[in-house]
């Protein structure tokens, strides 16, 4: 590599990302589905109506399919006969740094990769899948937002996008152990479940770890944390770099293999879950020797097996926010409702829920991208309208990012509705001192 740099006039270190490298990344990404998707768009605009960023701003530039314009141009120019001809005749529009700069906020700030657009497209275009692909070229051309770059660097270097190290978690573990009188198992080879966390949970919602400790003790589940890998969120997936994503996924695989666990539990973080469960094997190029579940799936299985014994009911009017990654993108919809039924007698679903729910606005890296703050709050207005329609006393959810966004959003719009994590709520109702 360094030999080629001799001919280069710019500093090799500074030149590492370039427009050409971005275009190369897109050439790698363009495949038959991409071509089919671009050829089939009928410009009906339905995707716009499905996207919270468009619906709440009314700005046509936030039309989902439009967000893919740079990739579409490259595809047309280099992969279609007509496009090649147009290029030769000088009719094609340029793809340059100015274009990418203009599109950077469209690809990162105004898309939470919630997949609602993909669901409604009448010709089956998977737009959020293409957003993911387009981000590959954005990173490689040096057009990724600073917040996500920093998160990716920290994720690789310290093991967590927020820069947390084991010692921070260790403090939390000590707290949990004192509060609950239980031991949190660490590096237990052969445990049934390796539990992963997200930084958001460690910092904002430490009660989550305590809830897991209690529930697993109650249901006699053998589990463990790993000192070598405790974090499952994947900043590589969010920034759109399969290379970074692969490093982070491999870390989980190594830890799980070393401990010889059969199952890995993704934290209450939607993107962590789709990242480790669906995208992971693809980015590392092989199947896992273990299974991956979201904690909610595990809890519902325990419930079905009669291993969760609860008492008492929440009487408040409760509603639920389905995380996009869990409900729409992974089909975990009934599980959380079964669990709700166990402990809540006054549960009401929002009008659009399950796979049709509206995104909270913070996923897909939007929350790690400070520049996107205003848009993130704008997108939240859709959720807010849904909440206002049914006026619940409290909201329940099962993704730390959604929960943070709901709390911030409700505060911003001065709505006094507390948000609770589902796992914690289940833990509070366990029949005490009586393992099943």
């Amino acid at each position, binding site marked *: *590599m360094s030999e080629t740099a001799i001919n280069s006039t710019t500093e090799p*270190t*500074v030149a*590492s*990302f370039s427009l050409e*490298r971005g275009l*190369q*990344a897109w*050439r*790698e990404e*363009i*495949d*038959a*589905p991409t*071509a*089919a998707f*671009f*050829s*089939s*768009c*009928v*410009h009906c605009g339905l995707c716009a109506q499905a996207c919270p960023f468009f619906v709440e701003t009314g700005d046509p530039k936030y039309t989902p399919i439009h967000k893919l314009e740079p990739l579409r141009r490259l595809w*047309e120019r*280099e*992969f*279609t*006969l*007509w*496009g*090649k*001809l*147009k290029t030769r005749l000088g009719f094609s529009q340029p793809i340059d740094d100015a274009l990418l700069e203009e599109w950077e906020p469209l690809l990162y700030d105004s898309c939470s990769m919630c997949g609602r657009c993909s669901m409604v497209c*009448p*010709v*089956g275009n998977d737009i959020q899948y293409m957003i993911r692909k387009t981000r590959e070229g954005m*990173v*490689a051309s*040096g057009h*990724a937002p*600073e917040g996500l*770059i*920093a998160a*990716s*660097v920290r994720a*690789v*270097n310290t093991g967590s996008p927020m820069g947390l190290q084991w010692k921070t978690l260790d403090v939390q573990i000590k707290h949990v152990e004192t509060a609950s009188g239980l031991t949190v198992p660490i590096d237990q080879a052969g445990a049934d479940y390796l539990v992963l966390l997200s930084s958001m949970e460690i910092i904002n919602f430490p009660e989550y770890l305590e809830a897991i400790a209690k529930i697993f003790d109650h249901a006699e589940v053998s589990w463990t944390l790993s000192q070598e890998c405790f974090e499952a969120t994947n900043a590589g997936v969010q920034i759109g*770099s399969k*290379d*970074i994503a692969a*490093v982070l996924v491999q870390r989980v695989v190594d830890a799980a293999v070393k401990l010889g666990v059969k199952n890995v539990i993704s934290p209450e973080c939607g993107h962590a879950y789709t990242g480790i469960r669906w995208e992971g094997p693809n980015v590392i190029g092989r199947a896992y020797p273990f299974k991956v579940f979201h904690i909610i799936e595990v809890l519902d299985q325990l419930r079905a097996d009669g291993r969760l014994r609860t008492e008492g009911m929440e009487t408040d009017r409760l509603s639920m926010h389905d995380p996009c990654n869990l409900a729409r993108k992974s089909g975990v919809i009934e599980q959380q409702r079964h669990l709700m039924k166990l402990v809540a007698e006054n549960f009401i679903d929002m009008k659009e829920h399950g796979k049709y729910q509206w995104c909270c606005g913070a996923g897909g890296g939007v929350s790690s991208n400070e520049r996107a703050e205003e848009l993130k709050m704008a997108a939240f207005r859709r959720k807010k309208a849904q909440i206002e329609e049914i006026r619940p006393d409290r909201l329940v959810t099962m993704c730390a990012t959604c929960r943070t966004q709901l709390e911030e959003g409700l505060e911003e719009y001065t709505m006094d509705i507390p948000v609770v994590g589902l796992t914690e709520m289940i833990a509070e109702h366990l029949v005490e001192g009586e393992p099943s």
Partner: protein
Amino acid sequence: MHDRPTLGETLERQGVSRRGFLKFCVTTASLLALPPTAATAIAEALGQARRPSVIWLSFQECTGCTESLTRSFAPTLENLILETISLDYHHTLQAAAGEAAERAREEAMHANEGQYLVVVDGSLPGPGANPGYSTIAGISNLQMLEETLAGAAAVVAVGSCAAFGGLPMADPNPTGAVPVSKVVRDKPVINVSGCPPLPMVITGVLAHYLTFGRLPELDEYGRPLAFFGQSIHDRCYRRPFYDKGLFAETFDDEGAKKGWCLYRLGCKGPMAYNACATMKWNGGTSWPIESGHPCLGCSEPDFWDAGGFYRALSVPTGDIATTAAVGGLLGAAAGGAAVVKTRRAKADAISAHRPITAEELEQQL
């Protein structure tokens, strides 16, 4: 009508064996996406059911829907159902004519007050239109529908005309045609669209109603989800070609012969919801796409006006005629070379991939 034999009795009299009947019930259960255990429930309920009264009204239509129902292969559920329901009034099929026919309708309505099903094929001139465009026995379609519906349990709009207006409503809609749902207010309407609909879909809906006493779950267009829940595209056996980007460009080119995707020939499969791809036509013989013709999307609202039947939903580079002409000019060889070149571009890009590292990213901060 209390002396009516039950369906079970009628079938027995017609020499349909218990086994044949059960087979029919199993098929119906699977068509309706019910668990296999439901077959017994269906058999039970159908066997006990008195011949339910059905009044079939035909308005502005071409009789294709009735043809679809009656031309299906015997012995099929269509026939079983047709012979076992009490089709008390059917413009096309009944022997009675004139006043006798209208009397039959009125009798059926009175005898089965609140219980009978009304099936409609064809659209009708709407409330604002000249009623003279379509009348039967001197009665306007609208009036007949309103009268007949008064004592009905539900109405089944069979065919795209009844469900969505169909051909009569196509631009410029000279008769002011409207679909059934536009004029029915207080009765459940189920739309069984298709031009014509699959016979098994028509009978499946009737069987469901007879068995469970209620209509099946519907989609946003009022169509039974069990049959209209998936797009043609999702179930099309040519889909792998679509996903690989292999399209027939004309009806007789190499691609067409190899069975490639018909998208560019105007296939509306991606936006058409119907059961053709799984149930097929003519007793499971074939279906349009299998016989080499793109899907017209006949089960969708306004399919007559949704652009040309042979115009692709959208094409990669604007106008398909131009593309084809340019392609022709450049010659097949150039086209082939272009494909090879683009494949190479992708392969080159992959082999030239320089993994992105955290160090590189860090330099940007």
